[in-house]
Every structure is written in structure tokens, then in C-alpha cells.
């Protein structure tokens, strides 16, 4: 560890980091407080304020009573949609990515580097280049405006990340291990189940957290390929926060925002370490 006591002005350092911390926390605190204030209370003052009467009812209303577009079922159906897309797509893309990452790093086959290179191009290619083709593909296989359509997209596109993560991790496993097992007669799947998978939990946690956050937060595909009751929660939130003709309902909207952000916030809270690892793994391509 380096000695850092030579830097003067410790008080100034603490002051500056505290100011920054307040600025980064403020939006969250404001929204949490607003989710507990009544709509009238916010309308009379501003978005920033301490609840005079704790309006816990906002959460119930946001969950199952608030109107999004024409339906008044709260954001519960959209949360369910997001879960039904995110969970299967996360599992599929992680498992397929693990097998493929193992194949390209340890099994090796003709052309593996080429295939791997093309797959990871998906990290860079803008979504907009794929919007029209996906529209046509989803329509032709009958999955447009279905949750399974989104699962398919996120599974296939997620491979770009999951193969990259797993391949880099598996590349560090000694090849001798694989070679010895092969000489002993173990096949592709036996080696995967018995040797690779038991060693994989660190990278699988990173991959699952990364994919879950990514897919839950995705918006463009959700809003393009689904409508109405089929939309994921990110798309529904936009409809919900759009200005409506009658009195604004910022209290309930704030509660809805908190509910929609909660799954990824919880994941960050409990798995922050792995989240950051995924972030840096994704950055240093």
C-alpha cells in the first residue's frame, strides 16, 4: 500500500467528496420522498420537500391502480412482462454463452477465432442497424408483440456479451486439464459438466448480473416490438410519465419509478462487486 498521508487539506477532500455524494444521492432521495407525498402536496410546492403526511397509498396505486395509457392496472403487468422477458433471456444467454465460450477458448475448432470475432462485433454495432431486420424476422415467425420475441432478441444479442465474458474467463483454465480429460475419454459435455461448470461460478455470477441489468433496463426493442399490455416496464414508464391533461400525479409516478428501478438497484446493492467486474470486463474489450 502506498503512503498517501503526504496530501494536505484532508478536510477539503472530505468536503468535496461529501458534496459529490450528496449530488449523486439527491435524485434518489428526492424521488423516494416524493413517492411518499400526496399529489396535491407536490403540486402546491416543488418536487423537493419532506412529506407532511406520509402517503403510503402511492405505492399501492402505482402497483395496481394507476392508469398507464388506457389501462388502469398500475405497473404490475409491465413488471411481470419485464420479469418474463429478463429471467429466461438471462438464463438462456448465460448458458449458451458459457458453452460457446468454453468451445472457443478450450475446445478449439476450425474458424473459431473468426466466429468469435464476429460475435463480439455485436458489442459495437448500433441497435438501430438491427431494428428493421428484427421487425421483419419477428413478424415472419409470428413473435411480434410477444414477450417471447423479446426473449429471442435478448438471448441472441446477449451472446455477444456472455461469450466474451466466459471466453476470457475460460482462457485462463490450463489446457492440460482439458487434454488429460480428453485422453481419459471424456467428451465435450462431460468435460463441461464435470470440469468447467464447477469452476465457473465467479464468471456466471458476473454474467447473470450483467445480463439481468442490461435486459431489464433495455428500452428501444421493448418500445419498438411491443405495444399496450405487452410492453416491458421501461416502455410503460415513458407512457406513464408523459404529461396528462388532468392534474399531475407526481407522487404516484415517483412510486412507480422506484418500483421499476428496484430490481436492478437491489442487484447492485447485493452484487455490486460483480456488477463492477462486469462493467470493467465489458469496457476493456
Amino acid at each position, binding site marked *: 500500500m502506498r503512503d498517501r498521508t503526504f496530501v494536505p487539506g484532508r478536510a477539503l477532500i472530505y468536503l468535496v467528496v461529501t458534496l459529490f455524494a450528496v449530488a*449523486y444521492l439527491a435524485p434518489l432521495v428526492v424521488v423516494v420522498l416524493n413517492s411518499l407525498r400526496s399529489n396535491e402536496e407536490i403540486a402546491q410546492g416543488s418536487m423537493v420537500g419532506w412529506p407532511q403526511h406520509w402517503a403510503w397509498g402511492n405505492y399501492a396505486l402505482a402497483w395496481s391502480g394507476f392508469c398507464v395509457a388506457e389501462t388502469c392496472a398500475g405497473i404490475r403487468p409491465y413488471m411481470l412482462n419485464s420479469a418474463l422477458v429478463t429471467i429466461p433471456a438471462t438464463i438462456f444467454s448465460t448458458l449458451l454463452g458459457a458453452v*460457446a465460450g468454453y468451445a472457443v477458448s478450450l475446445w478449439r475448432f476450425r474458424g473459431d477465432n473468426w*466466429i468469435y470475432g464476429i460475435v463480439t462485433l455485436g458489442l459495437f454495432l*448500433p441497435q438501430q*442497424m*438491427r431494428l*428493421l431486420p428484427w421487425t421483419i424476422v419477428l413478424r415472419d415467425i409470428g413473435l411480434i408483440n410477444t414477450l417471447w420475441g423479446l426473449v429471442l432478441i435478448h438471448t441472441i444479442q446477449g451472446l455477444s456479451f456472455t461469450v466474451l465474458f466466459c471466453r476470457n474467463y475460460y482462457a485462463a483454465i490450463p489446457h492440460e486439464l482439458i487434454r488429460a480429460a480428453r485422453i481419459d475419454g471424456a467428451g465435450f459435455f462431460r468435460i463441461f459438466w464435470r470440469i468447467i461448470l464447477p469452476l465457473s461460478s465467479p464468471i456466471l455470477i458476473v454474467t447473470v448480473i450483467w445480463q439481468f441489468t442490461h435486459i431489464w433496463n433495455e428500452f428501444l426493442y421493448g418500445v419498438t416490438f411491443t405495444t399496450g399490455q405487452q410492453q416491458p416496464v421501461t416502455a410503460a414508464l415513458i407512457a406513464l410519465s408523459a404529461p396528462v391533461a388532468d392534474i399531475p400525479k407526481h407522487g404516484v409516478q415517483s412510486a412507480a419509478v422506484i418500483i421499476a428501478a428496484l430490481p436492478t438497484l437491489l442487484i447492485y446493492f447485493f452484487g455490486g462487486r460483480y456488477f463492477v467486474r462486469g462493467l*470493467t470486463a465489458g469496457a476493456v474489450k
Partner: protein
Amino acid sequence: MTDAASTATRPGRPAISGVVGRLPEVLMIWVPLLLSAAHLVSFSIWTIWISFTPSTLVPVTGWVGLRNYNAVLASRNWQIAFDNLLLFGVAFVLLSLITGLLLAILLDQRIRGENVLRSIFLYPLAVSFVVTGTVWSWLLNPGIGIEKLVHDLGWTSFKFDWLVDRDMAIWTIVIAAIWQSSGFAMALFLAGLRSVDSEIIKAAQIDGAGPIRIYRRVILPTLWPITITVVVVQLQFAISAFDLVRALTNGGPGIATQLPALVVYDLMFQRSQLGRGAAAAVLMLLILLAVLLPYAAWRYVQRRQAGHA
């Protein structure tokens, strides 16, 4: 592993051989990889092809050369979007670099509560852009947000209406984007600062160099590779920014905060101009390549040098 070894004592498995025996394996390796690679290649080629056709509501064959590109490039929508992208891209990347570096240096001073602070600076990254955009649209809205708060506190002449000001609205996107992603720059910089060889710093201290001089001459120069990575990743985000703008300003007021990704969406799905939409998407790709290709070349040179060293 012991298990793999023990099962292998079975006398040499007769080669069921051929494709049939290896079918599950072949399927598991090739199907996902080929689907992923094939969709990337074919989808890109298809979109590029459509950008040269007269497609409007539905894709049609035909060849119109660069007509779609000329139409997009000549449209006011695209021109504003491109100017905005330049301003947003440069301002956001520079400011988030500065913020991230400052936070990393401060956190690197062996301060108390470093873990908590780091978590606070990073949590916005876990939140979706839709949520970020929505929350900031409330805070920056002069009717209910910060301006109203200050008015209620008694300073009634206070003005902070960038969200509805045509000239300043693009800066609200910069603010929200920095709040969301400067933690990312901080995380990478902090990792870089922690990996600087302490021997070099000790040597500099013995030579009588002060902290500022040590940072400037010894520590910061080692951060170049990280800086370039951060710039490229953040630029990539800026170029494809969509959700954040959609939730924060929806391109407005008017089309003052238009960005290329919104133009593409507008052309494809609101105006049913598939050919032009595809052309705009390809233009986005070209902008991205202008950033990524030099980066790829730089990485290649770095790797070769590392290989020779």
C-alpha cells in the same frame, strides 16, 4: 475432475463417431454462435441494402443510389441532430472524464468510507436511462423542480429553465448523462491509480517531488490507456443515446435536443420512411466507425508492442 478420470477407465469407448454421435455437441457449439454471427452480418448487410432502395412503408427492391443519404443529410432534423451529437458527445465525454478522474483521485487518498462513497458514485449505472431521464426531467422542470424550489425559498428571480430553453436544453442531457455514467470513468481510473507501482512514487518522493508534481509527472501519465478506453466507451454511448433523451426531453423543445438515434426511430417507425431510416442508421454506424477504427488500430499497435517487448 476425479470423476472424469474414473469414468475414463472404461475400456476405450467405441467411436460411435461421425456426425450422429457428436450431434448434440455440434448443435450446442454451432447453433448459438452461428445464429449470433449470422444475424449480425446479415442484418447489417440488409439494412445497408435497404438504405439504397426506394423503400417507404415496406421494404422494396430497386436502386436509388445515394438519394436517401442526400435526403437525410439535407434534412434540418439530421443537421440539428448531428450538431447536437457533436456538442453532447464532446461536452459529456470531457466532463465525465474530469469528474471521474477527480473522484478517483479523491477516493485514492485513503479516506474513510471509501467503499460507501464508491457505491454512491456508481449506483446510477444500475438504473435504466428511462428512470434517469424521467427523474431529471422532474428536477429540471422549472414548474416543479429546482427552479420552483428556489422560488419557494424566497429567491423569486432565480432562473434555471434549461429544459424548456431551446439553446440550453441539450445541456440538460449532458447533466443527466454525467450523473448516470461518470461513476464508470471513476471505477476505471481508480483501478488504474491503484495499479501504479509504489516504488516509482517512493523514488519521486525521495527526490523531493510534491504531491501535485507526483500526480502530474508520475501517476497521471500511466492512465493514458484507461483514458482512451473510457473516451471510446462513452462516445459509443453518446452516439447511440436514445432512451435518456426520449425520457428527458423527447428531442424537444421543438427539435432542439434531437439526436441521430431519435432521427432513425422517427424515420423508420413514425414517418414510415424505411429507406431514409436505414440510411440514417448507416450514417450512425459510420460515425461510430470514425471513433472505433482508430481505437482498434491503436489497440493493435499496443498489442504488437507488448508482444515484442
